[in-house]
């Protein structure tokens, strides 16, 4: 199968052989590898400078903030406890988790299904539909929030609305407003499509001959092959949902719904006008942990050749 690919070489099904090529290379610790490691280490260090500052600052005392510094004068572990007490952060955390999970799980299905369909199935106008999705990427969210607010508020039969969507508050100030508008996005449909476009149709054909239905083909055969795409989409959406601020601010007023970022805005100014950075950084540090965990966990799918057992060609 791999030998019969036509030019330009397309990405064939991942082979079942383990990453054997590595063993055949003799000079494994070549100078090239060392130089690469050094370059990556330096680059990596440049990348994490603000992150390191964030952690260090979370351990400083409140008075050390006015001048920029790196190391705390004395390590204030209690900041982590104190920060939590300053505002209902457990509620904010909980809200963020609910929103992130409830957005991302449906999203992974809806967007990838659409992406697959556009990539592999003979839909009429699929070129036009793809263009439509791509064009939607060009609309900035900042202005959309007002019309989107109107749409969300005018959902028929919700929040006291009649069948025309008038009279009540629709989904405003409910979980729906935070979740439903984001269970699909053109960005992820497009990304999924680009991943699926490179998968060979032979696999699907073979499955069809075995009598598998189209939808089953998607779920059972094609989707597992696109695990890197799934992980990528999940990472992206988790990050944007976790950090979302302006939409939750506008679409909700109750503290029981507002997310983490809203709580963080609390620390921007204290009574003396100084920002309470140590607390802000403490909560921010905690906030990054789930995403880093997700990334590290997702790394497993980012190793070549480890994709699911494809059909041996």
């Amino acid at each position: 199968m791999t030998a019969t690919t036509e030019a330009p070489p397309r990405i064939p099904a991942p082979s079942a052989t383990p990453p054997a090529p590595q063993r055949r290379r003799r000079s494994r610790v070549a100078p090239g590898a060392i130089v690469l490691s050094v370059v990556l280490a330096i680059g990596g260090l440049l990348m994490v400078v603000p992150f390191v500052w964030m952690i260090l600052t979370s351990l400083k005392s409140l008075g050390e903030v006015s001048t920029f510094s790196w190391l705390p004068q004395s390590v204030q572990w209690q900041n982590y406890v104190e920060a939590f007490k300053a505002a209902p952060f457990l509620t904010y955390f909980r809200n963020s988790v609910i929103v992130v999970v409830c957005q991302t799980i449906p999203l992974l299905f809806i967007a990838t299904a659409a992406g697959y369909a556009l990539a592999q199935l003979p839909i009429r106008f699929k070129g036009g539909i793809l263009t439509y999705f791509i064009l939607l990427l060009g609309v900035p969210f900042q202005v959309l929030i007002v019309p989107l607010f109107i749409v969300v508020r005018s959902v028929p039969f919700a929040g006291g609305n009649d069948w025309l969507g008038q009279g009540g508050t629709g989904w405003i100030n409910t979980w729906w407003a935070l979740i439903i508008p984001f269970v699909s996005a053109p960005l992820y449909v497009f990304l999924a499509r680009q991943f699926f476009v490179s998968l060979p149709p032979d696999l699907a054909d073979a499955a069809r001959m075995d009598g598998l239905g189209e939808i089953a083909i998607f779920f059972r055969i094609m989707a597992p092959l696109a695990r890197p795409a799934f992980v990528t989409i999940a990472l992206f959406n988790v990050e944007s949902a976790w950090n979302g601020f302006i939409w939750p601010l506008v679409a909700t007023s109750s503290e029981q719904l507002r997310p983490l970022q809203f709580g963080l805005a609390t620390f921007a100014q204290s009574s003396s006008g100084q920002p309470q950075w140590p607390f802000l950084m403490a909560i921010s540090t905690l906030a990054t942990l789930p995403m880093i965990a997700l990334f590290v966990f997702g790394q497993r799918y980012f190793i070549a050749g480890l994709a699911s057992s494809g059909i041996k060609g």
Partner: protein
Amino acid sequence: MTSATLAAPRRAERRSARRGSPGIARAKARAGWILLVPALTHSVIFMALPTIIVVGLSLTDARVVGRGDVVWLDNYIELFQDQTFRTALLNTLAYTIVVVPVGMAVALLVALGLNAPIRGRAAYRTLFYIPVVTSAVAVSTVWLWIYNPASGLANEVLAFFGIGRSGWLTDPDIALPALMVIGVWQGLGSKMIIYLAALQGVSQELVEAARLDGANRWQIFWNVTWPALGPVQFFVLVTSIAGSFQVFDLVYVMTQGGPANATNVLTFDIFTNAFSRLQIGYASAETVIMFVFVGVMIYLGRLTQRDRKDY
């Protein structure tokens, strides 16, 4: 539905599959629509419909939705005479033209490096990903410190090389380039992930075969890796263009469009018009113009794709 269609005897099915009969094609198309419809419907309600409302608003002089009169194309005419808008447009074009190619190239190089079988690459990958999740406040504070005209790292580095100090973000001539650097730095992590994910699909056997044929690293890259990245490359290109053209958070947090509009970019100008000035009709017209520009740039970007088939 589809399973009912395929309830036909298997042998007949296999014959059909081999000949690609219309029955199979219809089943595929139907399944395609089923898989597509949720995302399509969702986008129509929550994105296309609001966009249409924005276009409608652009024809009014509304300060807030619902309070205004239709003025047809007056907003558009006024925009092209608006110095602030023109500046924002130029700034945005400049920003995009620099950040997109530079950002993509650096991200690809880093992804290639992180795909090589070196030790500890999972750790390096995490390092490069971290800016994506670092708190925006931390990012802006550290960069403001770096660019601090009085005591920042950037000026220290310049002094080390004997070059005079700069005002960085307080200097109207340097502020935008300074932001471009941060833009590339910030955008690296996300692009890198996408490239990494795509690189996983590059056939190791092809690479090995090419190597055995005597191809050097560059030839392997150009003939095996690069074409395999085609579809994803297009994605990164389009999203980079759209993303850079819509740069907002960076400007909002670091410079608020200043000094003297030197870092005023389109989305920030739209935001200012919509909410600081409460002129949503005008801001909507600006959004439509921006949308057109993005569309044109994406189209131009598509022309650079080597293999149109992958579009």
